[in-house]
């Protein structure tokens, strides 16, 4: 995924939906990394985004099993991630220890929030200005 510059405008949204199967979390990581790199974020930020998206998808698949949507919206200065699960009525949430993942997200992105209805994890990443003379 490489986003042309004309798509990198404030208000643009990008979305991916994956089945509630941990095997697809890697796809969500690739999605996050591709967006981060297309905005020329430093690799350390891209790594943080991959980790937070991975933790969020894993947490939602355990606590509210159902398809998981990863939505990214660009504002003037930030990329905001909303990761939401649509729980399947027949699925049962696990009581497996999952809080560590939320703590990791909070440590990476201090504005991270988790809400139960709908099950959503939100965090945002600052967009850094390109150094002069690049691009």
């Amino acid at each position, binding site marked *: 995924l490489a986003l042309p510059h004309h798509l990198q405008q404030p208000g643009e949204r990008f979305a991916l939906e994956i089945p509630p199967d941990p095997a697809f979390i890697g796809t969500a990581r690739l999605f996050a990394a591709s967006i981060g790199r297309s905005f020329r974020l430093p690799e350390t930020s891209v*790594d943080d985004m991959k*980790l937070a998206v991975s933790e969020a998808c*894993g947490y939602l698949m355990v606590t509210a099993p159902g398809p998981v949507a990863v939505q990214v919206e660009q504002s003037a200065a930030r990329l905001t991630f909303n990761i939401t699960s649509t729980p399947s009525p027949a699925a049962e949430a696990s009581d497996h220890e999952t809080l560590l*993942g939320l703590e990791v997200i909070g440590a990476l992105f201090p504005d991270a929030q988790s809400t139960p209805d709908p099950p959503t994890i939100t965090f945002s990443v600052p967009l850094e200005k390109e150094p002069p003379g690049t691009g």
Partner: protein
Amino acid sequence: VLDLIQNGSHQVVVDLRGVEFMDSTGLGVLVGALKRLREQEGDLALVCTEGPVLKILTLTGLDRVFPIHRDVAEATGS
């Protein structure tokens, strides 16, 4: 790792230098292995020098739980 433990190894070193990504699920596996080994008076050491894997170990405080070394020779004391 579980195979090693079941085969009688009590001192295990996991070289993570080639691992590009790990989340809390991977940490859970390592913690589970560490717990089993310590029940048998063994230990699990990690080889990890930099990058995202060391970062999550630090973020979660597990860098104070696992012995972390720069290379396998240091971890094994050879």
